[in-house]
C-alpha cells in the first residue's frame, strides 16, 4: 500500500498493464516525452520506449481512428484525449466505428481501445476546459463509460478498462486529480493522502466494471452521483444532517441498477446529482430508471441537482458548479416533499 493521488494512480495502472502485457500501447497529444499535460503518463516513454508510448498529432479523430486500427491488429491501445471538451473531433470514430465494430461484423472484429480523458470544471478552465460530456456517450450502444471518484477506484477501474475487450471511455474528473474536493472553493485544498481511497496498492488489482459503490450508508435518502460530486454530496449530506445513502455509480454504463434500486427501496427518496448540464444528461436516465423500478417505494419526486443548462462560464465557475449549497437545498427539498 502507498499513498497516491489520482494522477499517480492512473500512471500506476498504465505502468502495471504495460509491464504485464506487451500489447498495451499508449498514444495521445504530449503523452510521450513530456508525460502528458496532467502528467498521467509521466515516465512511461522512458520506461517502455517510443514505440509503445507515442506522441500524436493534434487530431483527436486520427488518434482514435489509428488506435482502432492498432486494436484490430492485436494491440491494446490506451488513447488520451487531452480534454473531454476536445473529444468531439473523434466522435465519429467512437460512435460509428469503435462502438459498432463487433456488432456490424457479427462478432468477428473488435478493438479493445480505452479512451481516457480529463473532464469537469473547477480549475478555471472556462467553457472549453470544463465540460462533462458523459451523457452523450452513455447513449451510444457498444461502449462502456466510466468515471472514478478517487485514486483507488481510478487505478482499479482503469486496469479493468484496459483489460476489457469492449471499448471504454474513461472520464477523469480533473478537479480531484490532486485531492478530494467537497465543493467549497474557499477552503484550502486537501490532498489524497488524508483520504482512505488515497491508499492505493502498488500492484495489480481490479475494480470491476459495472458495479456501483455505496460510499455512505443511510436510510432516509439515496443520493446517486459520481466523479467529483461524490465528495460534494458527502459534505452536503453532513451539512443537512440527513442520513443519506450515497452511491457512487463509477461505471455509468452498464449501470448497476440493483444497487440503486435496493437503496431507493429502503430509503424511499432519491436525489440524483452531477456536474454536467441537466437536460437529457445522464441524470435523466438515472431518474427514469429509478422511477420505473422503484415507483411504489417513492415517497417524493426524484430531484436532480446538476450544472445549469448553459456552457461552463469562466467567471461564474462556482455559481455554475453544483456545490454543497445546491445539493443541500436539493436534499432538503426531497426530504420535505410529500
Amino acid at each position, binding site marked *: 500500500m502507498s499513498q497516491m493521488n489520482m494522477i499517480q494512480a492512473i500512471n500506476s495502472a498504465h505502468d502495471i498493464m504495460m509491464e504485464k502485457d506487451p500489447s498495451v*500501447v499508449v498514444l495521445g497529444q504530449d503523452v510521450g516525452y513530456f508525460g502528458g499535460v496532467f502528467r498521467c503518463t509521466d515516465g512511461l516513454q522512458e520506461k517502455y520506449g517510443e*514505440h*509503445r508510448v*507515442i506522441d*500524436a*498529432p493534434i*487530431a483527436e*479523430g*486520427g488518434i482514435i*481512428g*489509428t*488506435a*482502432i*486500427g*492498432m*486494436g*484490430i*491488429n*492485436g*494491440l491494446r*491501445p490506451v488513447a488520451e484525449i487531452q480534454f473531454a471538451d476536445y473529444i468531439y*473531433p473523434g466522435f*465519429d*470514430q467512437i460512435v*460509428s*466505428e469503435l462502438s459498432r*465494430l*463487433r*456488432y*456490424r*461484423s*457479427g*462478432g*468477428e*472484429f*473488435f478493438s479493445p481501445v480505452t479512451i481516457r480523458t480529463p473532464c469537469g470544471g473547477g480549475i478555471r478552465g472556462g467553457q472549453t476546459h470544463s465540460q462533462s460530456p458523459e451523457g452523450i456517450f452513455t447513449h451510444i*450502444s*457498444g461502449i*462502456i463509460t466510466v468515471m472514478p471518484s478517487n485514486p483507488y477506484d481510478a487505478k482499479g477501474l482503469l486496469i479493468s478498462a484496459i483489460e476489457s*475487450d*469492449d471499448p471504454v471511455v474513461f472520464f477523469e474528473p480533473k478537479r480531484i486529480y490532486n485531492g478530494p474536493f467537497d465543493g467549497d472553493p474557499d477552503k484550502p485544498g486537501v490532498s489524497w493522502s488524508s483520504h482512505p481511497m488515497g491508499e492505493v496498492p502498488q500492484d495489480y488489482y481490479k475494480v470491476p466494471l*459495472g458495479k456501483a459503490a455505496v460510499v455512505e450508508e443511510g436510510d432516509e435518502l439515496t443520493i446517486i452521483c459520481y466523479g467529483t460530486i461524490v465528495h460534494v454530496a458527502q459534505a452536503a449530506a453532513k451539512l443537512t444532517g440527513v442520513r443519506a445513502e450515497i452511491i457512487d455509480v463509477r461505471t455509468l454504463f*452498464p*449501470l448497476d*441498477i440493483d444497487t440503486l434500486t435496493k437503496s431507493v427501496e429502503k430509503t424511499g427518496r432519491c436525489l440524483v446529482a452531477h456536474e454536467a448540464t441537466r437536460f437529457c444528461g445522464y441524470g435523466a436516465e438515472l431518474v427514469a430508471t429509478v422511477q420505473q423500478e422503484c415507483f411504489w417505494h417513492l415517497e417524493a419526486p426524484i430531484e436532480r441537482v446538476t450544472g445549469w443548462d448553459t456552457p461552463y462560464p469562466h467567471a461564474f465557475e462556482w455559481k455554475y458548479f453544483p456545490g454543497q449549497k445546491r445539493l443541500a437545498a436539493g436534499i432538503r427539498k426531497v426530504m420535505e416533499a410529500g
Partner: protein
Amino acid sequence: MTQKPYLHIPHPAARPGEAPDFSYLELSDAGAVDRPPSDERARNIEYLAHELVRVLDDEHQATGPWDPSLDKEILLKALRYMVLTRAYDDRMQRVQRQGKISFYMQSLGEEAVSIGQGLALEPGDMLFPSYRNQGLFILRGTELVDLMCQCLSNTGDMCKGRQMPVMYQDPARNIFTLSGNLATQYPQAVGWAMGSAIKGEKHIAVSWVGDGSTAEADFHYALTFAAVYQAPVILNVVNNQWAISTFQGFAGGERRPFAARGLGLGMPGIRVDGNDLLAIYAVTRWATERARNGHGPTLIEHVTYRGGAHSTSDDPVRYRPQDEWAAFPLGDPMDRLLQHLLELGHWSDEKQTALEEETKMVVDDAWKEAISFGTMTEPPFLDAQLMFEDVYKEIPDHLKKQRDEMLKLAGEKS
C-alpha cells in the same frame, strides 16, 4: 486580369443530353513515365503524382519501365477473377431489381483495381476496403455464396443480419469489415500498419476510398499519421469521376490529381491508369516494396470510371450523359486485359465465351445455394435474438431483459 470575387462552382464536362467530354483528363502515353527505385526520396518523385502510369498501349501491348512482366498464369487468373467479379455484380444487381435483396452496389468498370492490387499483395497484408472492392474478396477466395448470404441477411450471413448488402468482411483472409460511413477505414488502416511496425512484423495495410470521400476528415488523418510515422501502408483513391451526382471536381480534383494530396506531407503519390491491370499491379508492387522495406506509405490514385449507377437507389441518367462510360478514354478494364491476352496469343474468343458461360454457372450455383439459407421473404430466417448479441462481448443484463421482452411479445398475439 481583374474580376470581382466569385464563387467558383465546379461543372462536369457534360450533363445529360450533352456529348461526353473527357478532355479534362491529363493522360500520359503508355510506357512514358519513369520508374524510380522504390526507396527513392519522396521529393524526387513528385512527377509520379502528376503523370499517369500506363503499361498497356493502344495496341494492347505491355510497354515501358513499369511493365511487371507477369507470366501467363497470373494474367489468366486476373482475367478469370475480373470476369467472375463482373458476373457476380451482374447477378446481384438483377436479384436486387427482383426484390430479393434490399440494395446493391456494383464495381462495374473498376474491377482492375481490386484484382490488380489483390494480386500484387501478400496474403498477410491487411485490407481495409471500400464498398466497391468486392473483387478483393473474390480474389482472396471468399466464397461467392458467403458474399451472397451477406447480401441476403440470411442464416448464412457472416454479419448476422446486421449490415446492409455489400458490407462484407473476411477475417480469415485478412479483410476488414466494411463500414457504411465513408473513409473511416482509412486511419484504421494506418493504425493497423503502425501496429505492424510496432510489433516488428512485415505485413502492410492497404485501404481504398473514392474520389468524393477524400474530402472527409479521415482522409486527412490517415495521410497525416501515415506520413508522420512513415507507416507501412498503401492508401488508394479510386477516382471513378463521380460521387453519387457530383463529379470529382467537388472533391477538389479540378486542378491537381488526387495522387498529389500527400506531397505536401512528403508522401509519394502515384497516378495510375485504373483500367490497366498491369499498371495497377506494377505500381502496387512498387508501393509494397517501399512500405515493406521501411520507406513509408504511398498514395495511389486510380483513374477509372464508375460504369454503373452509384447504387441500386441511384439513377445517373438524371445527372450525366448516358453514354459517358463508352466515351471514357481509358476504356473497359476487362476488355483491355482480354485484348492483351488475345494479342499475346494466350487466349481466344472461344475460350472467353466458354469462361463467361462457365462463370455464369458458378454464379448461378452459388445463388441457388445462397437462397437455401433463406431470403428476405423465405425461410429459414435468422433468429432475431441475434440482434442482442455482439453489442458487447457478453450480453449485458439490460439487453437480456430487452431480448426477453421481445421474445415474450413475439409469442403473444397483438
